[in-house]
């Protein structure tokens, strides 16, 4: 997509921004964002180098072997920021390398499409070199010879910025052959997508990168054993990779201490809030701040509205109640109450919004974005949408809610190739659990079987995809 110029200078033009000023964002406490400029302009190479840029690469290539990098990242317990929270160091330790093993690929998952998530965009649009620096370290640790940034097609600005930054880095010798005189070679290309949420699933992403339909692959083999074109491949989220340079430079203990005694997870997190709040936005905060602290940053709900429920990190996480705001926003605390931290960007739902309508909107998304590979997802999610549409209109029938319970269970973990259906099931299951009465109110206003033969739900899909 090439941009037109019609919207340039238009005050409605969207600009990504961090809501903390430069005085709050310090190198010792804000490793992800301290270099960002208050004016929101891009930090290009010159400024990045002035702000200690690429020092972690210089050190790691001179002093560490791949195992040394992996050990530090593992000790720091950097958990994946794309939503799953899997230890990056453990993932890296499972990548096949050495001996006769061919050098493989490091892929940055920049397909940010989880509803309610807008963090990776900021890192790529305003500070591209931190991601490049993190990718070089990841490549060294995993013996990757080529990196790809798999960027969603709609992130036009990020593509422009990243491509220019890659050129800058290559010209300065931070990419290409013999990086910084170390003998290590690595380069990066940007691959832009053409839509479809499923591309964010790591094996579907690899298929998309190879120029195929983005259906997920069976695991095992895991990408670290056999990924892109059959070679060892590592897929990491943008924010995860952006954490690595500071870990290498300051060490695992420093990283662990960033979160104080709030949580066992170390580091900081790019948290955010969206929905009808006073000041939606993004903040880099210690891992494990509470939901209440985060919501305070956003000024609470808009005047006259009260919080009914919230999603901690995207629509594939489970609904939580206001009482859960006191919990630390870390992976384990949120998992313990039946949800997931996900991407860590909170979505606030006010009391005046009905859960049935919200669930209908949310499941329309998942039904439309199902790639069609597995039956529970392809056929189950449109069925869920149909039931929710009926309940929304007061045309639900006895047994519909039990059917939704069953569909949520049938779309749960382990029954499909990938996590899309379980991601659609978790908000459904938690909404039915916490707000069952609202669903029950949609039943019984119409008697008899008015439904006939179920039709496929188009879910507002564009005609050219059907």
């Amino acid at each position, binding site marked *: *997509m090439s941009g037109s110029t019609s919207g340039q200078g*238009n005050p409605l*033009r*969207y600009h990504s921004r961090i809501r903390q000023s430069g005085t709050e964002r310090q190198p010792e406490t804000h490793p992800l964002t301290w270099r960002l400029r208050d004016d929101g302009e891009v930090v290009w190479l010159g400024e990045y180098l002035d702000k200690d840029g690429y020092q972690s690469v210089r050190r790691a290539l001179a002093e560490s072997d791949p195992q040394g990098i992996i050990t530090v990242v593992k000790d720091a317990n950097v958990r994946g920021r794309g939503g799953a929270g899997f230890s990056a160091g453990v993932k890296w330790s499972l990548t096949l390398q050495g001996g006769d093993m061919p050098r493989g690929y490091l892929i940055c998952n920049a397909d940010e499409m989880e*509803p309610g998530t807008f963090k990776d965009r900021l890192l790529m649009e305003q500070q591209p070199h931190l991601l490049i620096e993190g990718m070089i370290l990841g490549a060294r640790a995993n013996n990757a010879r080529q990196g790809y940034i798999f960027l969603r097609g709609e992130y036009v600005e990020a593509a422009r910025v990243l491509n220019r930054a890659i050129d800058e880095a290559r010209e300065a010798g931070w990419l290409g052959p013999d990086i910084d005189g170390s003998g290590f070679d690595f380069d990066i290309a940007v691959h832009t*997508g053409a*839509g*479809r949420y499923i591309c964010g699933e790591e094996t579907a992403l690899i298929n998309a990168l190879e120029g195929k339909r983005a259906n997920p692959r069976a695991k095992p083999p895991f990408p670290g054993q056999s990924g892109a074109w059959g070679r060892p491949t590592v897929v990491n989220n943008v924010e995860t990779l952006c954490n690595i340079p500071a870990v290498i430079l300051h060490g695992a203990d420093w990283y662990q201490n960033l979160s104080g005694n709030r949580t066992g997870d170390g580091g900081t997190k790019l948290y955010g809030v969206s929905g009808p709040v006073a000041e*939606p936005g993004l903040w880099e905060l210690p891992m494990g701040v509470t939901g209440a602290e985060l919501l305070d940053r956003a000024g609470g709900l808009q005047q006259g509205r009260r919080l009914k429920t919230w999603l901690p990190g995207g629509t594939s996480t489970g609904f939580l109640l206001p009482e859960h705001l006191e919990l630390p926003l870390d992976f384990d605390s949120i998992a313990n109450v039946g949800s997931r931290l996900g991407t860590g960007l909170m979505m606030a739902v006010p009391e005046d919004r009905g859960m049935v309508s919200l669930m209908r909107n949310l499941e329309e998304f998942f039904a439309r974005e199902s790639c069609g590979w597995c039956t529970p997802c392809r056929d189950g999610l449109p069925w869920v949408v149909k039931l929710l549409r009926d309940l929304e209109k007061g045309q639900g029938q006895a047994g519909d809610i039990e059917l939704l319970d069953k569909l949520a269970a049938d779309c749960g973990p382990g029954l499909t190739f990938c996590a899309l259906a379980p991601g659609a099931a978790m908000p459904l299951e938690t909404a039915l659990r916490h707000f069952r009465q609202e669903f029950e109110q949609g039943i019984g206003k119409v008697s008899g079987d008015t439904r006939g033969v179920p039709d496929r739900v188009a879910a507002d899909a*564009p005609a050219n995809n059907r």
Partner: protein
Amino acid sequence: MMATTPHTTELIGSDRFELHPDDEAAILREKEHYEQPQAACIEALKIVQRRHGWVPDGAIMAVGRLLGLGFAAVDGVATFYSLIFRQPVGRHVILVCDSSSCFLTGYETLKQALVEKLGVDYGATTADGRFTLLPVCCLGACDGAPALMIDGETFGPVTPEDLSDLLEGYE
């Protein structure tokens, strides 16, 4: 996406198509980034679309011939991805974010205002060929919700009252 390109409708229902030499060169350059030529397929379709506004049948075959792929493989890809258009679209494409943050901040009102203003719903193009209206996954602009994208530029928050001024800039 296709702001400066003509609305190429004469290629409907025709296999006749020749890749523009610049596009062919761009696709071959793209191929160099990957181990296998198939990986350039999606970008090739986007390159065609940038010039023509959409991807006609003949272009599927031309891309297949250039990359050594079967036509079914190319069309399978072209019909999978929502931002590849297999039928003509307007001179400008409006993508309305319909995900949950925008739902909670009123995208449905905004979308209804757009439908009334343009006289077309999702998947359709205005009679003058100016705009095509489509839904899109979360645009990642949730602190600016409700958001929409026109020709690759993101706007938000957008209210129904903003629409007249916003759309005026697109001929």
